[in-house]
């Protein structure tokens, strides 16, 4: 199983489990990042952290450390 921050630019995947807890978990859900959501990594910042993800039509930057607990599965072509 991969974490969200393992995605390379251009890769897509589906969220299989969010292991984050507390306020951050809620924040993810609020932007629509829930189990079953399709995510695409669309960019990486110059220092390789954070990365940018396309989530439900919006591009959102998330730090690698913060999304290490979001598990994703299955490269969707």
């Amino acid at each position: 199983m991969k974490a969200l921050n393992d995605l390379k630019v251009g890769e897509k995947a589906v969220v299989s489990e969010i292991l984050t807890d507390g306020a951050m978990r809620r924040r993810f859900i609020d932007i629509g990042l829930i189990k079953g959501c399709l995510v695409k990594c669309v960019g990486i910042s110059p220092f390789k952290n954070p990365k940018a993800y396309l989530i439900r039509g919006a591009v959102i930057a998330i730090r690698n450390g913060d999304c290490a607990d979001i598990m994703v599965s299955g490269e969707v072509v």
Partner: protein
Amino acid sequence: MELKKTIALMGNPNVGKSTVFNALTGMKQHTGNWAGKTVETATGYFKSNSTTYEMTDLPGTYSLFTHSAEESVARDFLCFENSDKTVVVCSASCLERSLILALQCMEIKNDIIICVNLLDEAERMGYKIDLEKLSEILNVRVVGTVARNKKSLSNLIKNLNYKDTKSDFKIEYPKIIENAIKIIETTLENFDFNINKRFLSLRILEQNRSFLEKVKLQNGKSVMEISEIKASLSEALDYLKKEGLYENRISDFIASAVVKMAEITASEVISKTKSQYSKRTETADKILTHKFSGFGIMLLGLCLVFWITIYGANYLSNGLSFLFSYIEKFLESFFDFIKLPNLIKDIIIDGAFKVTSWVVSVMLPPMAIFFPLFTFLEDIGYLPRIAYNLDEPFNRCKSCGKQALTMCMGFGCNAAGVTGCRIIDSKRDRILAIITNSLVPCNGRFPAIIAIISMFLVTLGGFFGSLLEAFILTLVIMLSVAFTLISTKILSATLFKGTPSAFTLEMPPYRKPQILKILVRSLLDRTAFVLGRAVTVAVPAGIIIWLFANVKIGDLSLLAHISAFLDPVASLLGLDGVILLAFILGLPANEIVIPIIIMGYLSASSLTDLPSLNIMKDIFIQNGWTIKTAINFIIFCLFHWPCSTTLMTIKKETGSLKLAVFSALLPTLIGVLLCFFINLIF
């Protein structure tokens, strides 16, 4: 009779709420292409069909249940202020996400109008949205708009005029949640909380304490203080547990149902003609956030902005000072004509008028050019990219990524930057960002720094000279950013220990800037505002400094006494008493520092010529300035106490006088240390 209606304006960040608000009310809420720009509510009025509407623009929020200060403002307004209608602005280019909030709002209020904005942007991205179908599915009024185009808003106004057709929309939750809701809702029937019962039941189920504390009966008792409700909650929790849903996952379960509903709704109303995210934005992002070109363009861009500012300001400055010298001559002959006593004439002309004309001719031009350029970058959506590029250094310093954004705002105005820190969720991160905000120079300080650079550090004139000046100014800015990072790092390792809160930064599509609007808005609002503040300070300051310079105690003027008193300290820092006094008197507004210095020097040497950089330089050199003085001045201008407006804002935002004092001490300490060592070494 005239009707009055109140309207709340809700929406995700950066979907154009403020644009809708401005177009309808004719107000001048500042707009910009980045999430979190509106941190306070704004209220405006407009009339249509003999009804007066009072519209409140609420801070953008992703959800009604997150924790940042500015987001709970929006939720509380919706829940506790009885507005007649609520307009939820959605972004057509990102409808699915926008609908999450719209659905949440519809659970509280039954007078919602969904305003699908940015239809033009969605079209360019290849989305087509069936507004009628959306209205049908959700049983709610839906209007499509392109808020930048005022005409498209007439439809929204028409819908506001309609008599309420209360919709009975409900989000269907999974069966077990519905059963649990029923348990609590039945108990709630016996109480009058003046809030949607189904909505309240859900929040009770989630045990959203911070919210429930605010929901009160008329006798002041809050929800969870009532034993019947507590009992029904534990009954519901027991039931859910039996069904396999544990307490800590209930909130998730409910929220996910809303997200899924948004997903399903969106998929039914959106048809894609091209199935991709905006190509243009994608390409632009590849270049602007690339590891080499990203930084290259950022620094070159900064340099270019400064160069345009310096080069252009030069011409404007000369023109203005020419104009002022004429006004001065005119005033002089006018005062002679009406036989004004010499003393008053001197106070007005040499005191008030001269300082004011200095402020205007030296400070106005850079502002008038820099502000529109800054607004331009804001408008196209470049600011979030800067934050994205710079996030890792901030991460290393254990601070929130949004601090890069509030730092950028500080370049415009530190007080605005401090207020902007509300976009940061955690208290620790917010305080760090607030304290370090005034380490970057605001617009009131830029002109002074530019003036000193062009007088002392770049003797080369013309095109290459201004290019070199821009380069040096860029270095100065990099220095201030470096110290922002260093101080943040030190503070978070000592006084404010902790881990930074996680953050999500939205990067909106680049949008075409509205050039004309940028010019009008930034010149009329920002520049006029800052200049107005500077002038209102400059007039009394001019009079005070004139009195200081002319009231004599013994042989020496008051000014000479004070600056002689400050001289020993100032000379340790490589400055002189007059400069230090100017910084102290400049507390209300940094714009007046240089004018005060000039006044201080002039009073001794009785030069009465018109202001221009060359003459200024001569005056400075006569008073012992060297390149070292210039460098120390720039350093001290970067790092000293923030202006009184900023300090008061810090006090207001943190609610702590201690933190406000600390925010003044930190930059001062940095400035004093740097100046001291530079003075010692060179």
